[in-house]
C-alpha cells in the first residue's frame, strides 16, 4: 500500500480512537485529497473527555512538523497514547485545530504533500 495513504489512515485512526475512548455517540470523518495537501476533519458528537485531556491533545497536535522523525517513526502512530502517538501525529501534520464545545469535538488537521 502507498505509504502516504497508510500515514493518513494512521492519523485518522489516532483521532477516532481519541474520540471513541470518550464514548463518542457518532464520529464523522472527512478526508480531502487536494493538490497540495490532505485536509482531515474529525467531528465527534457527545464526547466525554476532560478539558485537560483535550487541552493536552491540542498542545500535542501543535507539535511542529518534523519530517525526519516522521520518516522513521510513523509506523508507531495509530494506537492512541496521550504523550507519544498523538505527539507523533503532531509531527506528521502542518496545521492543527481542536474545538471542544458542549461535548462536541472537532479536530481539523492539514498535512502538506
Amino acid at each position, binding site marked *: 500500500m502507498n505509504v502516504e495513504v497508510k500515514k493518513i489512515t494512521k492519523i485518522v485512526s489516532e483521532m477516532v480512537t481519541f474520540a471513541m475512548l470518550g464514548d463518542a455517540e457518532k464520529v464523522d470523518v472527512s478526508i480531502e485529497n487536494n493538490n497540495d495537501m490532505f485536509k482531515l476533519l474529525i467531528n465527534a458528537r457527545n464526547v466525554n473527555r476532560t478539558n485537560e485531556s483535550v487541552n493536552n491533545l491540542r498542545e500535542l497536535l501543535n507539535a511542529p512538523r518534523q519530517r525526519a522523525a*516522521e520518516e522513521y517513526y510513523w509506523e*508507531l502512530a495509530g494506537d492512541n497514547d496521550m504523550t*507519544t502517538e498523538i505527539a507523533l501525529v503532531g509531527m506528521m501534520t502542518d496545521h492543527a485545530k481542536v474545538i471542544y464545545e458542549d461535548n462536541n469535538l472537532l479536530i481539523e488537521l492539514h498535512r502538506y504533500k
Partner: protein
Amino acid sequence: MTKENLSSYKQVSEKTKFIIISIFPVASFILAFFVSDFNEIINGLYKIIIQPDVLITDYIKVGGLGAALMNSALLTLINIFFLWRLNFHMGGFPISALFIIAGFAFFGKNIFNVWPIYIGGYLYAKQQKKRFRSIIVISMFGTALSPMIFEVARAIGPSNHWGLAFAILAGIVVGFFLPPIASHLLRAHDGYNLYNVGFAAGFIGTVIMSFMKSYGFINEPRMILSTEHDLFLKVFLSMFFILLIVIGYFLNDKSLFKGYTKILNSSGKLVTDFTFLAGFGMTLINMGIMGIIGLAYVFISKGVMNGPIVGGLLTIVGFASFGKHPKNCIPVMLGVFIASIFKVWGTSSTTVIIAALFSTSLCPIAGEYGAIAGIIAGFIHLSVTMNVGVLHGGINLYNNGFSTGIIATLLVPMLDVFKRRNE
C-alpha cells in the same frame, strides 16, 4: 498555515540550540591539544582508522586520549554542520543522534568508517524521491554498523584495494536498506526500545557475520580498554553535565524544576521529545541530571572510566532529550546492578557498567509498566547483552540495543497481559 505555539515555556532560537549542542565537541577539540601535541593527534587518528573497530575497541587506548577526543570532536562537529546546513529543528531526535555519535566516536566510529552508511542513506533518499533531510538522522544512528567496513575488507584481504572497495560498497548497501528495516522493526517492540537502530543493526550484523563465517572468516572479538585517564574523564564529564544544568537553569526562567513534572510523568516511549514537551532549558537540565546519575553508577560500581563508558554516558545524556529521565531509568539500571551481584560477571567490569548505562534503552518499560517491570527488564538485559554479541561478532556497536530490542519485543506483550487484566 503554520501551527500555533501553545507551550508555556521559554522559546530558544535554533542558533542558540546549535551553539549549546556544540559545546561538548568544541571542548573536546580544545582539550585534545592540551593532552596531546599535533603530531600525536595525527598519528593517533591514523592508528584509530587502520585498526579493527569491532566491540570493544577503546580509541583512547588505540590512538591516545588526544586522538580519541579529536575523533569525537570532528565527527560530532561535521554532523552538527550537516544538520545546520539542512535547516534542522534541533529537537530530541537529532540531539540523541549527535550525542550517540559523540559517544561512540570513543569506541568504534571514526572519521573514516562512517561515511558509506551516509552515502547509502543519501542514495535511499534519492531513490525514494525524498530529501536527505528526512533520512540523515537515521543514517547517523546507522553508523552503529561502521565496524563492518573494516571486517568485510579484512575478510576479502586487508592489503587488497578491491577488498576495501567492496567493503565500502557493502557499507553503502547497508546504509541504503537500514532506514526501511529500522522503521519496520519498530512495530516489533512498539516503541519500548529507544535504541531501535541497534535492534535493526543486530539483525543485519548477524546476517552479514554469519555469511562471512560460512566462507571461513574468523571473527576476532576484542577487549581493548584504557585505564590511564580515569580522573581526567570523570572531571571533564562532571563539568560538562553541571554546565548543561546551569545553562538549562537560565533558559528555563531561572528554575531547576519548572516543567520537570511533564518529563517525569511521561513513559519515555518513542516518540517523546522533551524539547517540545517541557522546553529546551528543562531538557538540558534533565540531560545534565541523567549524566550525573550515570556517572554516579560508575562510581558506585567502582568502575574505571574509559572510551566505552564515556560512550555510554554520552548516549544517556543524548537520550535524556528523547525519553530518558530519572524515574524511568533508575529501575532498569538497578535491575542490571542486582543482576551483576548474582550473576557471573563482576559489578565493576566495563562490560557490566556499559550494560547498565545502555540498559536505559528499556526505560519506557519502567515508565509504562512501573519500577518492578523496569528492574526485571534490567535484570534480564545483562544476561542477554552478554550473549548476543557473538551473533554479529561485534560489528554492531549498539549490541545493547540489539539486546534491549529482543527483551522489549518479548516483555511488552507479557506485561500487557497483566495491564489489560487490571483495566
